[in-house]
């Protein structure tokens, strides 16, 4: 239990640092901007209570907002992400399997499941984020292309990180 909290705390700090000091400066062709920090919310353990999940998502969003000078924007997108996460997991994962599958990581859940999971959640988060940021219908084409390309970039980075920390299944 303590270990889980510690690991998630370190993950939180690391992802905020990477997002704010590295990825904030990266934009490919003014279109693709990665928002890798949502990986924190995606990798929380399966048995996280809903309330805690929303609180953490909200706090994560506000932390990023503090650095991006957009109070509320990322928080709103992260809360959407948390809801999608709950729905996605309730549809695809058996409740009984929680004991030996504690976290939705790439190494535990396998590539196919994790890819679908990451892609779906990222698409929802980014769609909400970019549209809320622009808040206009007139630039919809530019916003949508930014949304799609950024999502691909983010998912790519997630898979890279997942493979970097890949561990073989510890099944007994």
């Amino acid at each position, binding site marked *: 239990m303590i270990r889980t909290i510690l690991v998630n705390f370190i993950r939180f700090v690391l992802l905020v640092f990477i997002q704010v000091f590295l990825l904030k400066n990266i934009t490919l062709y003014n279109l693709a901007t990665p928002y890798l920090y949502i990986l924190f919310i995606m990798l929380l353990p399966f048995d996280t209570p809903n309330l805690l999940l929303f*609180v953490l998502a909200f706090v994560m*969003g506000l932390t990023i907002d503090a650095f991006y000078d957009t109070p509320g924007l990322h928080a709103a997108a992260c809360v959407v992400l948390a809801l999608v996460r709950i729905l996605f997991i309730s549809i695809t994962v058996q409740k009984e399997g929680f004991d030996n599958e504690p976290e939705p990581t790439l190494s535990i859940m396998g590539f196919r499941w994790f890819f679908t999971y990451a892609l779906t959640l990222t698409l929802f988060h980014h769609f909400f984020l970019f549209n809320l940021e622009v808040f206009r219908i007139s630039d919809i084409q530019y916003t949508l292309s930014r949304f799609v390309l950024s999502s691909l970039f983010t998912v790519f980075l997630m898979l890279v990180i997942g493979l970097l920390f890949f561990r073989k299944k510890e099944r007994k």
Partner: protein
Amino acid sequence: MRNLLIFITKYNAFFLFLIFEISALIIYVKYNAFQKASFINSSNEVTGKLYTQVNGLYEYMSLKAVNDSLAHENANLRNQLKSSFYIDTIAKHKIADTVFKIQYEYTPAKVINNSFNRAYNYITINRGSLDGIAVGMGVISSAGIVGKVVNVTPHMANVQSMLNKYSRFSVMLANNKEIGSIQWTDDLDPHKAVLVDVSTNAQPKIGEAVLTSGYSLFPEGIIVGRVSNLRAKGGGMEITLAVDFSKLQYVNVVDNKFQKEQDAIEALQKKDDQDNTR
């Protein structure tokens, strides 16, 4: 009522979502519409401090460009030094005329190739004839003399380093201005050189500075090294060189504007000597 509670607990995710989403949107609309200073922005103490730290790191990464510009500035300042001007006071004039004429001009250059462990060492610098570099010019660094230019291409120049068996420069002892010449030691130590041809009545001391004499390519008084041993193995005095050739990065090429004139008049004299001996 009970049914309502059951309904809420069953769909708690949705209701929690509503609560948090609405509060996030309220924050978003409120703080972004008015753009007022709020407790969550980068003027906040913590984020501000972090940004300062990271900026320090970025500054460190741009040190190379800063160094380049400083080297340029140094060369510019050297050009304005009084010692790089030739005093052109003509005796015929009764007025004390202090018009200065530039005698030495410095061009900054970066060392792009360097060797110091062979018998004949050469340095390549990133300035060439297009920048006004010519064969025969002296090269100094901020620490002392480095060598002289032996080959030039439009963009590069080859400098025969002090650490070269062919190198021989006219120098003097700092205290009594005794002239001698300096050359590299036989044992190929990149920190040592020998001072030879000093007249016997000179009384050098250990630790005394050895300067350029002004009879060579360099302006007078640039440090070469310090006397470290009065009797070197092969004769002469052992000098510890002021320049650390293994760490050489930026140098200045010295253009003596009167070098041609000096060469011409000395050639004339040599010719006269030959004529007289005949």
